[in-house]
C-alpha cells in the first residue's frame, strides 16, 4: 500500500507539467456566440391596418432575423399589396422612421384603393425568396355614428355607434398647428376604453365637448384644427384584445395572423363625424 501510494504521488507529479502545457492549447477553442436561431417560422413582423376610408395605407414591417436596426439599415425585402378579388396589385414604398436616438423602423405605404368587402394580401419577399404574408378582409360600411349633446350642463354628450360587430377604434382625432414654426402634428385621443355596450352591436361613449382642451390646455402657441370623431369597424378576423392575457398577446404565435412571420394586420372601414365643439377646443 505504501509503495502504491508513493508511486501514485510520483506519477501525479510527473504528469502535472504535461497536463498544464496541454491546457494552454485549449486557448484556441472557439469563443464565438451564435445567438440567432435560423428558422423558417418567423421571417418578418407585419403590423398595421387597411382602412377603406383612407387614401393612404401605412404598414410596419421588420425583418425579424436581422439585428435591431440602430442605424437605419437598408430593408431587405419587396412588399406588395394584392386585391384577391380583382387581382389589382401595387408595390408598397419604403419610408424609414426614427423613433429614438438608436431605434429605426421601416413603414411601407401605398395609395391603392381599398374596397369594402374585398380581401387583400400583403406579401413581403426577401432577396433569398423567404416570404411572409397576411390576408385581411375589409368589412362593409355601418350606420353613421351620431353625437348627442349633453342633456344637462356639465354632463358629457354621447357618441352613439350602431351596427358595429367588431369595434376596432373610437377616438378623437385632431391636428395641432404650432404658430411659431407652422409645423402640423396629427394627434388622437382614444376613447374606446369608455365604450358602454347597449346591445345588438350598439354602443355609446360619453364624450365631453372640452375633451381636447383637457389635454392641450398647456399649449400656448398652438392651434387645434381639423378635429373629428373617428370610429372604425374591423373585419371578421378581428381579435378582442382587451379580453386577452397580455402574455398571450406578446407571444409570437399568440394572436398573429401572419404566415411565416408574426404581427397583426386587420382590415377596417371607418367613418368620421365632426367634433361636437366647432372650435375644437375652448
Amino acid at each position, binding site marked *: *500500500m505504501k509503495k502504491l*501510494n*508513493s508511486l*501514485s*504521488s510520483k506519477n*501525479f507529479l510527473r504528469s*502535472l507539467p504535461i497536463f*498544464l502545457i496541454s*491546457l*494552454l492549447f*485549449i*486557448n484556441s477553442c*472557439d*469563443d464565438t*456566440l*451564435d*445567438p*440567432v*436561431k435560423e*428558422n423558417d*417560422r*418567423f421571417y418578418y*413582423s407585419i*403590423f*398595421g391596418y387597411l382602412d377603406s376610408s383612407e387614401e393612404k395605407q*401605412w*404598414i*410596419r414591417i*421588420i425583418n*425579424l*432575423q436581422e*439585428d*435591431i436596426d440602430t442605424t437605419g439599415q437598408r430593408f431587405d425585402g419587396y412588399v406588395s399589396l394584392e386585391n384577391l378579388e380583382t387581382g389589382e396589385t401595387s408595390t408598397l414604398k419604403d419610408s424609414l422612421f426614427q*423613433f429614438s436616438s438608436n*431605434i429605426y*423602423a421601416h*413603414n411601407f405605404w401605398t395609395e391603392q384603393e381599398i374596397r369594402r368587402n374585398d380581401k387583400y394580401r400583403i406579401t413581403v419577399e426577401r432577396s433569398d425568396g423567404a416570404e411572409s404574408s397576411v390576408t385581411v378582409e375589409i368589412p362593409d360600411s355601418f350606420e353613421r355614428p351620431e353625437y348627442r349633446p349633453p342633456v344637462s350642463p356639465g354632463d358629457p354628450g354621447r357618441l352613439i355607434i350602431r351596427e358595429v360587430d367588431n369595434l*376596432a*377604434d*373610437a*377616438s378623437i382625432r385632431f391636428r395641432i398647428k404650432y404658430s411659431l414654426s407652422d409645423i402640423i402634428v*396629427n394627434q*388622437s385621443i*382614444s376613447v374606446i*376604453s369608455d365604450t358602454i355596450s347597449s346591445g345588438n352591436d350598439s354602443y355609446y361613449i360619453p364624450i365631453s365637448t372640452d375633451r381636447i382642451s383637457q389635454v392641450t390646455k398647456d399649449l400656448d402657441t398652438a392651434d387645434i384644427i381639423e378635429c373629428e370623431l373617428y370610429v*372604425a369597424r374591423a373585419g371578421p378576423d378581428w*381579435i378582442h384584445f*382587451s379580453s386577452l392575457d397580455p*402574455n*398571450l*398577446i*406578446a*407571444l*409570437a*404565435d*399568440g394572436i398573429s395572423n401572419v404566415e411565416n412571420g*408574426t*404581427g*397583426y394586420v*386587420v382590415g377596417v372601414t371607418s367613418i368620421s363625424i365632426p367634433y361636437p365643439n366647432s372650435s375644437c377646443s375652448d
Partner: protein
Amino acid sequence: MLNLLFVDILRIIQKKMVMKLSMIFAAFLFLVYTNAFSQSSTIQGIITDASSGQTIQGANVLLLNFDNRQIKGAVTDRNGLYRLQNISPGEYKIRISYVGYITSLDTLEIKKEETITYSASLSVDNAQLDELIVSVKSEAANISGGHQRVSAVDLTRVVTPAGSGDIANYLQALPGVVSSGDRGGQLFVRGGTPSENLVLIDGLMIYQPFHIVGFFSVFPENLLANADFYAGGFSSKYSGRTSSVLDVQMRDGNINKTVGKGSISPFLAEIQAEGPLGDGKNASWIASVRSSQIERTSEALFGNTQPLHFESQFLKLTQFSDDGTRCSAMAMRTYDRGKLDFDMGNSFSWSNFVLGGKCTHLPKDSDIYVDFSAGLSHLSNTMGGSTETNLSSGLTRLSLNLDMNQSAGKLKLNYGVKSHMKWINYNIEELFQIPSSETNILMGLGGYAVSYIPIGNNLTIRPGVSLSFYANTYSPTIEPRFQLSWQPYGSNNHELNASIGIYRQTIAGISDLRDVGSAFIAWLPTPNDERMEAIHSLIGWKQNLGNGLQFSAEGYHKKLNNIPVSLWSTIAEFTTEIDYADGDIWGADVRVEFENRRFYTFLGYGYSWTEYQSAQENFNVWFGSPVQSYHPSHDRRHQLNSMISVYLGKYTAGIRWQFGTGLPFTRQMGYDGLLSFDQGLPNVRTNYGTPRVILDKPFQGRTPSYHRLDISIERQFEFNFGSIFIQAGAINTYDRVNLFYYDVFTQRRINQLPFAPYASVKMEL
C-alpha cells in the same frame, strides 16, 4: 420516459427512507441515551491562541496514561471545544497540540462520574512560525458528505488580485460551484440558485455577501477564523435553505497588543486594526475598512472605465471570562453598485447591514455547551434608478437562536431553538408596465436536534430533524436528515460518507433568468403557502494516499419541487409573476490534492446536470406543449479547476487555471416592436411599440466554453516594524475572450475581464 420513471421512483424511495430513518432515530436515541448514563467521567474545554484569544479549531487533545499510551483523543471543533468522554477514574496526562504552536502538557486527576472543564491557551512556536502557512493542512480535497472546512490558509492558495485571499475566489475554485462571471456576485452551488444559499457570519444571516466584483466578498483572509462550507447534505442545525450553507466565523481581535495591516492594489484597498480592550487581557476589538479601486484604475488598466464599486466596514468586540463565558458583538455593512454592461443597461446596487451578538458558555460542572445569538440582518437592492426602470427589493430579519451541545456517554447531541421575524418587500416600476409592490411579514419559530452516534469503532451515524412553524402562513414542517460516516480500516485515512435529507425554504429570490446578466433579485415569500423543497442524497469516498496526496470523490442527487421561476415572456420587462418548476440535479466531484513543505497543488473536476420542468400556459401556445424541460442558465456541465502554489523561502508563486463548458442561454428567433390594438388602431408612424424578442424554446443554446489562467508571485520583506508583502500577477494571463452574458433584448455580448496585470503591496505592523 424511463428517466422520469426512475426519478419518480427515486423520489419515493428517498422520502420513505427519510421518514423511516427519522423514526428509527427517535427510538435509537431513546435507547442509547438511557444506556449512556454509565459510571463514567468527561473532560471538556476550549482551546485558544494565547496571543490573540482566538479559539483554535482542529487542535489535537490526547489523554494518556503515564506510560504514554493513548487512552482517548479528540479534535477541537469550530468553537475550540473538545470533549473526552467515558473516562474511568484515575490520573492522566493531557496533551494538546496544534501545528505551529508549543504543545501543552499537564496532568489531571479524574474522579468517578465527574465532569471536568479543562481549557488551555497555546502559544505560537516562533521557530515554526515561518513554516506555519505551509504546514497547515489544506482541506480542499477533504470533503465529507458535502462538507468542507475552509481556513484562512486555504484562501492564500488562490490567486487573488489584492493583498490577501478571499473566500469568494476560493469557493469558485471548487467543483460544483458556478459563478455568473467575474462580476455580479452570484454563486450557484451544485445546481442551486443564489437565493437558495444560506450564508452566516458569526451565526447571523447575511443575504448578499459576494461583491459585484467576483473575486471578493465580505470574508477576506485577514478576517476569517474558520468556515464550514456545505455544498449539500447539511445537518438539521441549518434550516431555511435548500441548496448550500456557508457558515463563517470571523476572527477575534488580538488580546495582547494593537496591530494593524493595510494593503492596496488596482482592485482593492483595505485597512485593518485590532487590539486589546481595557487592561485585563480578556477583551479585544477588530475593525476593517475595505474599498474597491477598480473604478479609478480601470481606465489605465483596460482602456475603459468599469463602473463597479464596493465597500465594507466591519467591527467586532469580544470578551471572555474565567467561568467559560465568551461574548462578542459584531457589525458589518456592505455597499455594492455598478453596471454589468458597462456601456448600456441598468445599474445595480445592494447594501447589507448585519448587527448582532453572540455568547457561548461552557459551565465548569456541566456538559452542556450553550451558544446564544441574536441579531438583525438587512438587505436592500435596486436596479435601474431611471425614469424607465426602477426596481427595488428589501429584506429585514430579526433573529434569536439558542444552540446546545451536550454529551451523554458516547452519544453527542446538538439541539436548539430559533425564532425570527422577517419583513420582505419589493417595488417594480417599469415603463409601459403597471407599477407593482408588495410587503410581507413572516414570523417563524423552529427547532432542531442532531445526534452523533458511534456504532462500534468504524461507523458513526448522525440522524437529525428540523422543525419550523410560521404564524398565519405556512403549515408546520418537519425535515428529517440522516448522515453516516464509515471508516473501514478504523482511521480517517479512508472514509465513506453518505447523507440523505429533506430541505425546505419559504422565501424565493426571483431574478430574470432569461439572461444571466442580471444581479437584481426580488425577494418574496413563496406563494400559495407552498415551500420550495429539495431532497438531497449524496455518497462519497475520501482517502489519504500518503506522502501528502489526498483524494476524494462524491456523487450527489437533488430532487427539487416548487421552485418559483419567472413567467416566461418575450417582453423585456422584469416580472414578479411566477410559476413553478420541478427539477433534478445529478453530479459528481473528484478532487486530488498534494502538498509538502514547498509545493501545493489541487485538481478538481466537477460534473453537473441540472434540468427543470415547468408547466406554463404560454408554453402550449408557443411550443405546442404546456410542459417544457430545460437546462437553466447555471447548468455548467463540466468544470475543471487547478491550483499550484510553490514556496521558495521569501517567495511564493501561484498559478490557477480554470475551465468550464458553456452555459445554457435562450436563442432568439427574431426581434420586433409589439404594437397594441387594445386602445384603438396603432399609428405605425408615431409609435414603435414595446420591444419584443421572439424566443426559441428556453435555454436551448450554449455559450462558448470558459477558461482562464491567473498567475502571481509574492515576496516578503521583514523589517523591525513589521513585514511588507509585494505581489505581482495577472488575471486572464493569455487574454481569453470569455463571455459574461448575452443580452437577448439588446443583442449585446458582454465579456468578462480581459488580460489584467496587477501589483499589490501589503504591510503588517
